[in-house]
């Protein structure tokens, strides 16, 4: 049965929520363990920035969407990822992690990905964006959010992440439907997309930003005292879902992303020598050499009302 995108769009529209729906001052913030509190700040900051990066990815998807309905869906997803980032920032504020109006700086790997997306995302094909974004969503969002819901007792955080999870489930359902849609393309079109995508030098830059980001996140998770298996379990989901929709397997980019996720979750794979080295190298880039942050990455706010 083919996916009903119109129905999905109406569902998305009917499930909108706002920061103002949440009682940010409700009791429960004190339930965060003080030992966790200190580690949670950089973790939440990363999570928030990854949502923001996802938002930019969907903005690029909206330009590539083959139908007006799908374009509209992606416009909503773009905004919803931003909403998640805003809500996560508001949680940080609730937990007293922000100094005044402070917006935490993205880490160097996020900065590199932001810069890459800003420069190249709009030029990438739907099959590239449509396979990489679900992977990022499954791996990073899925694992990280799961960690927060498992470890944090604050009822407000639980409420927020329940809403975020509900949004994400619609994102993933659409992502997989789109991968299936891409799988229906002719072999010729799939080949052109693949070759056309890979011959671009921009892709190398993208890889050099994306690879260390994944490993960096893994390191962060480990630092929090969490088993990296959580991340791996989430990435394995990407593979499983693909197996459930065999047609998606026709998309060469999906296969490549899947293969890559296989490397990532195999700690013994030589890939990690390169990836870990890249984390070190990028970590050494001085701040002044990093590109200026684009204005879209400065839209974050914890204020429910503007």
């Amino acid at each position: 049965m083919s996916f009903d995108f119109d129905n999905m769009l109406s569902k998305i529209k009917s499930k909108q929520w706002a920061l103002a729906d949440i009682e940010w001052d409700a009791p429960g913030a004190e339930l965060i363990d003080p030992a966790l509190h200190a580690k949670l700040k950089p973790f939440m900051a990363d999570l928030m920035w990854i949502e923001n990066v996802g938002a930019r990815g969907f903005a690029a998807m909206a330009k590539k969407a083959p139908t007006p309905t799908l374009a509209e869906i992606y416009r909503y997803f773009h905004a919803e990822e931003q909403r998640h980032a805003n809500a996560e920032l508001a949680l940080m504020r609730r937990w007293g992690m922000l100094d005044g109006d402070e917006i935490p700086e993205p880490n160097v790997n996020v900065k590199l990905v932001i810069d890459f997306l800003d420069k190249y995302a709009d030029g990438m094909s739907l099959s590239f964006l449509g396979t990489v974004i679900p992977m990022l969503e499954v791996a990073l969002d899925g694992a990280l959010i799961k960690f927060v819901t498992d470890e944090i007792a604050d009822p407000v955080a639980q409420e927020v992440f329940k809403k975020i999870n509900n949004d994400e489930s619609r994102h993933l359902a659409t992502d997989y439907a789109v991968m299936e849609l891409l799988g229906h393309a002719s072999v010729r079109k799939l080949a052109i997309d693949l070759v056309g995508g890979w011959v671009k030098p921009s892709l190398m830059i993208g890889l050099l930003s994306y690879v260390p980001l994944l490993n960096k996140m893994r390191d962060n998770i480990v630092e929090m005292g969490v088993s990296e298996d959580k991340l791996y379990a989430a990435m394995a989901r990407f593979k499983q879902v693909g197996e459930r929709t065999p047609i998606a397997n026709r998309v060469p980019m999906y296969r490549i992303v899947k293969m890559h996720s296989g490397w990532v979750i195999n700690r013994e794979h030589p890939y990690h020598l390169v990836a870990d080295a890249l984390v070190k190298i990028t970590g050494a880039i001085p701040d002044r050499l990093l590109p200026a942050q684009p204005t879209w990455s400065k839209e974050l706010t914890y204020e429910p009302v503007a």
Partner: protein
Amino acid sequence: MSAVSKPLDVAIIGAGFAGIGAAIRLRQKGIGDFAIFERGDRVGGTWRDNTYPGAACDIPSRLYSYSFAPNPDWSRTYSGSAEILGYIDSMVAEFGIAPYLRFGHTVTGLVFDEDAGLWTLSFAGGRRKVRARTVILASGPLSNAGFPDLPGIDSYEGHKIHSARWDHDYDFTGKKVAVVGTGASAVQIIPELVKQAASVKVFQRTPGWVLPRVDRRTHGLTKQLYRQLPVTQSLAREAWFWGHESVALGVVWNTPLTRVVERVALMHLRAQVRDPWLRRQLTPDFRAGCKRLLMSSDYYPALQRENCKLVTWPIAELSPHGIRTAEGIEHRFDCIVFATGFEVSKQGAPIPVTGRDGRSLADEWRGGAYAFKSVTVAGYPNLFLTFGPNSGPGHNSALVYMEAQIEYLTDAIKIVLERGLRTFEPRQDRQDRYNRRIQRRLNATTWNSGCRSWYLTEDGFNATMYPGFGTQFARQLATVDLADFQLR
């Protein structure tokens, strides 16, 4: 039937540009037994209603005026609404139209009596019905203000203003204001609002192509020249006409010239907007011409003022205090300005019209309006439309098109009256053939190239635009070919 008074030769519905223009030409052709029924209390139609700050026409005034009523006194290249309204008033005075005007007459229905060959007009408020041999439906496509279909729109408790019903008593000084919409009205309102309001947030759904507008004050000597040597004014008008006519090659049809138009608009955007993300938000993803082209040199600078912000997040709903967008923030405002256009009658009829054999125009047009050469409709004898179906230009002055329609329909009315015809009605087969051709030709135009606009119905049927040059439109209406009509 309660109508007993002597039937009029012509009933004109609407005292806007079209109604007044038709009245002038009727008089000039020797027809004096007519009345203009206007729901408002003054003439001007769209230009009476659209008095928002910055309201102006984006067609040069020299061309946005009737050739039979030249005006040497236009103060600028593109005049504001007050001056255009003044022009309409001056036509009423100069051509002696005032005695024909009947204000406060809201027409609620039109019924045709085939045996008598007469239309009966009903009015709101229990006014006496009026009968007329012929009717000119000059109610205009842009006469009913349209609020967008947004969830919770009635829950908003702050001040609401529609661009076409401006509230001149509202003081924007120090207020937080939202503008919903970024079309032709919005790009005129926003530069004015940012001068007054404390903050302005502009909610954009889809960005349009914006071309620079070079608006100059008309030199006193030029006005004098036009007054003393009217031929120079006609020449200037001709020059503007042909200039616009040439734009059709890129705007009406999707051609390499469309790219040129887009390139000019993109250069304008690049020159005025430095931030790449803002530029991206303002870059359209449809072909130039598909939606109405916007003309403004002030819009982009206004958007970048300290107190202005462009919001492109989808609107989730309106709340009592403002607008909630999908990024989860409630944007609160003292006032929301809806620059969201009009309920364009591309489906259904502007008022209930019952034709021959009890047929209803609203029913027949449910899937999209159609007519014969935009002026007459089979089944509705002696009824004439101005700005009827498929008469919209995308590249030239609506007044040029309107003038062609007025010439055609006043000639036809003259024939009806002189020959004492009971019914004058286009032949169904001619009308069908005409519309098949129009729709076929529309397929190749930018309007039908894939974007959604007020030109199209929900189903993508184009009932509004004429797929060709203004010259072609005028030529098809140059003479009333009686072979196209059934006369009884």
